[in-house]
């Protein structure tokens, strides 16, 4: 079953008629993902690659069972697309778009969390945002909702993988596959300063998943997501976790690209992250291949 998405997950694509939206819709369907419809305001009624296009998410949900929406809407409308999906009650929203203004993301994330609380308290499944600026998520061999290369996720494994970086995720997944391990579900949480789902949010899902034996966490310098994850692991996790932190040699106070990887004060330094993982008994790999060695030791 893996976590969050599986072969039964029905997906809509917001921004399906754009170049990225169209290309990745094709790739997701090739992977086996059940894409049921697209949404592009103003293009309702069209048919795109055999899929119906609607003017609004609400129109799509009135016609289809929708478990998830993936968003390729350009930055100016991306946060609005998230809110549209959240207000339509879609339980899982994956924002791929890179370059969304930070303030838009702050507001969207806060509102999605409020809607999630209301939804849960009225007996719903909750509403979760993953991303933005993320590669999406994939349950190997079942369902890909994202932009990662199909082939490294074709066969199921039992390692849960989560990462702030896109390309490092692929790299890790490939190493796991090549080592004969493979991934259960891979979640790219996104590299922006403000994201909907953090490592600590994903960990309990992996902990509860019977198809995941161990977890690989690919972190970065900056922020305190890794520290929060270490704290959660220490207090709540039984399954083993192996971590990797990229950017450990990056100079202080420099913003490294879109990653938002900037070190402020004593928060987000490699030292604080290493200390947190040490306290949680989480081994930290120095290199990507070392991740595999460590995981192999654990899962035998």
């Amino acid at each position, binding site marked *: 079953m893996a976590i969050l998405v599986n072969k039964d997950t029905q997906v809509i694509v917001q921004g399906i008629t754009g170049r990225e939206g169209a290309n990745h819709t094709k790739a997701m369907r090739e992977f086996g993902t059940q894409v049921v419809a697209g949404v592009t305001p103003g293009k309702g009624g069209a048919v795109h690659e055999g899929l119906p296009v609607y003017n609004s998410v609400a129109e799509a949900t009135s016609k289809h069972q929708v478990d998830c929406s993936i968003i390729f809407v350009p930055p100016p409308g991306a946060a609005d697309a998230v809110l549209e999906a959240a207000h339509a009650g879609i339980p899982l929203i994956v924002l791929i778009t890179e370059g969304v*203004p930070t303030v838009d993301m702050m507001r969207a994330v806060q509102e999605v969390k409020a809607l999630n609380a209301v939804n849960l308290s009225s007996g719903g499944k909750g509403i979760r945002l993953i991303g933005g600026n993320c590669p999406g998520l994939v349950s190997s061999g079942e369902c890909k909702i994202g932009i990662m*290369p199909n082939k490294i996720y074709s066969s199921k494994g039992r390692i849960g993988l989560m990462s702030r970086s*896109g390309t490092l995720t*692929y790299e890790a997944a490939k190493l796991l596959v090549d080592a004969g391990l493979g991934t259960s579900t891979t979640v790219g949480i996104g590299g922006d300063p403000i994201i909907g789902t953090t490592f600590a949010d994903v960990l309990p899902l992996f902990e509860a998943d019977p198809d995941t034996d161990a977890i690989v966490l*690919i972190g970065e310098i900056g922020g305190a997501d890794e520290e929060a994850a270490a704290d959660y692991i220490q207090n709540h996790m039984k399954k083993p976790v192996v971590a990797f932190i990229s950017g450990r040699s990056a100079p202080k*106070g420099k913003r490294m690209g*879109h990653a938002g990887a900037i070190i*402020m004060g004593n928060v987000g330094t490699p030292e604080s992250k290493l200390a947190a993982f040490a306290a949680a008994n989480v081994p930290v790999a120095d290199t990507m291949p070392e991740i595999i060695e460590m995981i192999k030791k654990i899962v035998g």
Partner: protein
Amino acid sequence: MKLHEYQGKELLRRFGVNVQDGKIAYTPDEVRGIAQEFGQAVVVKAQVHVGGRGKAGGVKFSTTPDKAYENAQKILGMDIKGLTVKKVLVTKAVDIDKGVEYYVGLIVDRNVQSYTLMACAEGGMEIEELAVERPEAIIRHRIDPITGLRPFEARAVALKAGFKGNLNKIATMMVQLSKACLELDCNLAEINPLFVDENGDPIALDAKVDLDDNALYRHQDLMHFRELEAEHPLEIEASNYGFAYVKLDGNVGVLGNGAGIVMTSLDVVNRAGAKPANFLDIGGGAKAEIVFNAIKLVSKDSDVKAIFINIFGGITRADEVAKGVIQALHEGILTKPVRMRIAGTAEEEAKALLAEVNSPLIQMYATMFEAADAAALEANK
């Protein structure tokens, strides 16, 4: 986009923040003229995009127009952390002894998924240092990004921080700062020092504002604040190509597809015993032309002795990367050894293309470690 003090003050003034009168000047004569016009003591302040200008002698109190002229002579043309001072801000001076200096700032804080307002009764100091040395001295308060900071919250923060002075006016300045952040899309907006004079009135003596590049499209009126000459020339070129580029102080040029992989590449170069000369993320799905531009860019950096390319091809095709490198070679742009790892889609095609060219300048390796080791070896020769 980092703003100069005078630009930041101009923006904050739009939101009602009380700043002293000030004018920008490019010559000592202009500075004297402004000081005469103000008819009182002034401060002459270097306008450069680096911190620590005070310690570097870039800020000078001047009691008379002649003193101001003299100070401007010293400051204009001065080098501060590698940047030349081309202009100064001349502001009316306040009587520092008759008031107190505080710190207030808002910063994007991923840990609370919003802005955090920071307030500290110890102004004038570098907040980064204070955050490390005595974090408890800084009062932190999450801003609700939908409502913005409200006066009652601002008053509570000011009280907690132990600010003296007119509570309502100080709180109002914080609210104005919060409005500025939310409406202008600031990554950071700091008033340091926030001076409270003998009447209890707050005045922003300095302003540090950094705008979210992703949101500049909706602030076209602020684009004129961008000063290309103030940035590193390679950073300007990189931004024209749409690259995320940061100049660093090593000798190995580093490029990759994705911020995470590039950061890891920096780590790997360090492990190999060399220092990265830059961070360069060419983004996902890069075509040959983009790779060509990236090499052109990195090759212009005279610090670079070797280039390490680290690509994991998911969307990015290895053969496209190879084509870009080969084009650079053929056009005579590539003169430094390139050591690379290109994994993923169309790896074999890439190898075939490189075999055809067969140049000692370009070597491909199976792992990023081997490629980085080879690059470090070349750079350290």
